[in-house]
């Protein structure tokens, strides 16, 4: 049915949209602060770059799930049954929504970590670990999204 295809596409959109928005927002939080630190000390570009890039991974996870779904549609061709469509929709939810919030919050922690780079550059590895802790939940959501996706057979 056409409706099934619609839901399946919506699943892709949710996975990519929300995690992408979250990552963009999170990276922008950290990036703004990083730019400020680099104004004061241009030599810190490298270290701040790592922290700024960290909240970007959620967008990648969402994109990976979305891409995998698209591959599955392409492999089948033709309309997707209603139930499978709704399953795709649900599979997109964890990575999309957890990605949205965790990326924003990770951006805030990364911004605080950039404070470490500015004031005590020798301890900046610890700031990276703190920001990494937030990512755990995006990873868990990604794993669940992936296995939900993996269980769908067309």
């Amino acid at each position: 049915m056409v409706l099934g295809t619609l839901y399946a596409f919506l699943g892709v959109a949710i996975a990519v949209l929300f995690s992408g928005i979250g990552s963009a927002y999170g990276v922008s939080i950290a990036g703004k602060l990083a730019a400020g630190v680099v104004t004061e000390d241009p030599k810190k570009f490298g270290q701040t770059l790592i922290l700024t890039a960290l909240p970007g991974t959620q967008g990648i996870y969402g994109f990976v799930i979305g891409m995998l779904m698209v591959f599955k549609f392409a492999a089948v061709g033709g309309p997707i049954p209603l139930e499978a469509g709704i399953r795709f929709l649900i599979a997109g939810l964890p990575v999309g929504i957890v990605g949205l919030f965790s990326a924003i919050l990770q951006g805030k922690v990364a911004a605080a970590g950039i404070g470490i780079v500015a004031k005590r550059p020798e301890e900046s590895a610890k700031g990276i670990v703190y920001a990494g802790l937030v990512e755990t939940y995006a990873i868990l959501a990604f794993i669940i999204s992936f296995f939900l996706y993996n269980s769908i057979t067309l």
Partner: protein
Amino acid sequence: MAIVPMKRLELYGLKRHKASFLSELQRLGLVELIKPAEEANRVETGEAIGSELRRIDEKLNEINRVLAIFERFAPQKPNFIEQFAGTKTVLTWEEHQNYLAKREEAARLSAEIFDAEKEHTRLEQEKIKVEREIENLQPWAGLDLPAEAWNGSRRIGVLLGSFDREPWILTEALALEGIAYCFCQVGADDYHSYLIFFYQRDSRAEEVLRAKGFVPVRPELTAGTVGEQLAVLNAKKQELETSLARMEERLKTLAEERPLFLTLNDYWYNQRLQVEAHRQLLTGKAVFGLEGWVPAAQASRVEQVITALGLPNYLHFSDPQEDEEIPILLENKKVFTPFEKLVEAFSLPRQDEVDPSAAIAPFFFLCYGMALGDAGYGLLLSMICVVLMAKITMRPGGRKMAWLFFVSGLGAVFFGLLTSSIFGYSLYPGLFNVIEKPQLLLIVALGLGLVQLYTGTVLSAWMCIKNGDWAEAIWGKGVWLLFLTSLLLLAGGSQLGLAAYAQPIKYTTLVTAVLLIVGNTRGKKGLWAKLKAIPGGLLTIYGSVSFFSDVLSYSRLMALGLSGAVMGSIINLFVKMTWGAPVGWIFAVVIFLFGHALNFGLNILGAYVHSSRLQYLEFFNTFFTGGGRPFAPLKL
């Protein structure tokens, strides 16, 4: 291996030889000085030390000012790598000595540099002044009436000024009043037009113009025309600019002396450390004494060097006392040294703990390998590290970090070859394909976690034994492991073909659980105290939940490996799609390079963050707390 045993050093000598002993120890860099407990024992006043420190600080300040000027006029441009590693200048011993010999010259040079900088500032200010004058005169540039004529003649008045609206408003007003005039617009800027009016002295022209908002202004000029003055000013400006450029050139040339000042900076900094070390000496009227820590293996070397000085002294080494806090220095086999960096970044072990570097080495290797999971990326990372180590001089810390990534990259090569993944391409059938069998990858990740956490628990049991606490090792850790194992078999035994043993496994679980509770009551006196300890024992059993959630945390390795692999295959798919089109190969190459560079960057970062997190939070949780004080010898 592991934590280096330390010896306590006591050294007494004549007071007048104090400086030679200290500089020798500093050169050696093997002794950490201990601050004397009793301040009163120090006869030498802090005053002398303080004034010496001030003298050195003045020198350091001067050098830093010079270096700041160098940085302003000839900034060092660190490349991308140096932004992480820092810029360093490497000198040979002879160069170092040459620079130190030039100390006298440095004073002259720094005076010259300060003069040059002062002159530069003066010129710059003058240039700003001239520029402002030019700016003020610029709107009047069209006025070719010399300044001598601005007062007009006996009958004709001249009025110069600015107006912020259209000039015709003024001329109309004059015409309405019937006043004869003549006017000319000589220039304009964004807001004003600059006008000159000629009028008969007996008319009310000035009054009318003022009433309309005309503001009489004269350019700051006493003789000649504006154009002439502008030409003079511009010439002056050009002159200033050339001398500024010359001054900058000179400062840039002077900045070539940077290594000299850097060397002196180091020299005075070391002097400062030495003088500060005086605070840690016990001094009597004629004799001084110092105490310090020295790695036990190096004690003989220290003794040799001190004896070689040929000065009267008394040197004594002793083992540390029971409750003393010993500074921690890690030493491992060469394979494991890079992993010390990970431990240092967390916290050094306390003196009663083991050094976890060797324990985390194989696991970090595997974790990183799984998380990066691609032989191409791994090889690239290792090669980058090799090139870095060959090309730039790094401090020991940076070198360790580079080695760590080199070894970790090999981990990814290992895992990538196992699963047949090279830049996302599967060229031969490996053990299994990550994208096709993600469940298997998850099981491998969790299995690795289980092995590592078991290892951690065994290590903590071993530590108990080392500290003489056999009971805790057996009751606390041994039974705990049995309990966890039987729980695991209870849950997953049927998949392993152990369904027939379901009954005995169930009983083992129960028995070990009871043993855990019983074990928790040991050491408690009296029945009531033993009963009170039972809830605590139940809590221990509940601890298995957190143990297994730690194991589940290793699923991140599967997620990182999988997302990296999928990204890689997506990039390769795009490459394949564009390859067929006409001139598509250009795009294909760009997509391949750019895509894999991005994926590589994100994955090495993610793999590092999450692999080290697994060591810090999950693995260390089982046996390691840390909190040791790093060994900080007096050194150059």
